[in-house]
């Protein structure tokens, strides 16, 4: 990356698309800027342009922002045909206990096992184990309190599997109050 590459805007859009495609995880704007030796603004403009193209094409693919980066993926409407092709079935869903535990961890992170128990009113050990195994949660060190319990938080995999850009995309927990009663 010695000499400044003189890319036209169209070329930049094209190379950004190629890199996002190659990435096996969502690609961040920062990484694109670093690799292409361009500034953030140019990259963001290129992504915006690319995004508009994908929108207007109405093809089988979408460009989307997830887990802090950009990714090319299929549109939801073709999931049945894709499943037929891949011969896959939807992966096993999380149990209600695991989902509840995950919700508590997502909103209260970093959070300890006793704190989760306090909210759920039930032991959550096996749910936590499942979530760790599925890489949806990670440990976040110890809490400096009696017994130094382990702290848990959500992972990048969580953002990916739930299609979230970042944690701020989660609706506020207080918003759920309206649903109660």
């Amino acid at each position, binding site marked *: 990356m010695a000499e400044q590459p003189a890319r036209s805007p169209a070329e930049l859009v094209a190379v950004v698309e190629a890199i996002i495609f190659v990435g096996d995880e969502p690609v961040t704007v920062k990484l694109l800027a670093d690799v292409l030796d361009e500034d953030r603004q140019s990259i963001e403009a290129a992504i915006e342009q690319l995004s508009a193209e994908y929108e207007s094409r109405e093809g089988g693919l979408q460009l989307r922002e997830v887990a802090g980066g950009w990714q090319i993926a299929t549109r939801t409407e073709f999931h049945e045909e894709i499943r037929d092709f891949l011969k896959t079935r939807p992966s096993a*869903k999380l149990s209600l206990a695991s989902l509840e535990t995950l919700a508590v961890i997502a909103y209260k992170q970093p959070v300890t096992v006793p704190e989760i128990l306090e*909210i759920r009113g039930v032991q959550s050990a096996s749910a936590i184990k499942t979530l760790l195994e599925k890489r949806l949660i990670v440990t976040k060190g110890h809490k400096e309190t009696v017994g130094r319990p382990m702290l848990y938080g959500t992972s990048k995999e969580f953002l990916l599997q739930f299609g979230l850009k970042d944690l701020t995309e989660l609706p506020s927990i207080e918003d*759920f109050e309206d649903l109660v009663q």
Partner: protein
Amino acid sequence: MPRVYFDCLASSRLSVFALEFLPVQPQPEKYNFDFKKETAEIVAESRDELNLKLGEFAGPLDLLLYLIRQEQADIFDIPIARITDEYLNYIRLMKSLDIAVAADFLVMAAQLIEIKSKMLLPRDPLAEEDEEIEDPRQELIDRLLEYEKFKSAAQMLYEKSTVEQAVFARGKIESDDANAEISASVFDLLSVFQKVAARHKEEVKLEIQREEISLAEMIRNLKKRIFEDAELSLLAFFEEMHSHRELVTAFIAVLEIVRTEDVKLIQKKTFGDILLKRVEPAHS
């Protein structure tokens, strides 16, 4: 902050109390779905359908919410006597169906009974007229309201993951092959370490039975290796040893072979690996 448990003593005493006084009643008909066939997996579309399809509730608070909704009761004014009876009935039903009733359900039963008995107590006539009397149900109400928010959040997550399951990433491309690797978390580190440690324990057991290799054998092996491959990494050779004693034998074998055979020790870099190399016998 709602208190989760009574102190241990009170809690265990009350659980026993709760179990002893469970009235024997005919089973209520409204719980006639098949607990054994239904699983706790969420398969339903809506919240209500969701609850009905569950073979077990996610916890005592979940069960309580269900019963309150079923009774169409106001969560801020829970008919505690009726709900307690329903709750105990449900637990009895679970037991009769051999569904393991988690301790947490019994703790809640004890709490309900405690609240119920507090509600029955007459007001202290000596209490000041305008003194705030706390509703014995308040703590439970707070917990239920707090819990229900997270239950809704869980439902939201469920919906998000369902949508997400309809989105597919690209198939494998060439550059992925160079990266057929896993990204690890701290939890992976620990579980992998535990597995390795367990495997090691097994091997130590086996090793006790394994016969130690003799020096003569070791020299024979080493010779064969050097003459087959022309050179041999000492580091690699030592790493193949299974025990400390084998390592020592290997070391002596190397010294021996350098002394007696046309073999040289070569080290290309300081601290680098040492190669055992066969040299052509000098023409004399």
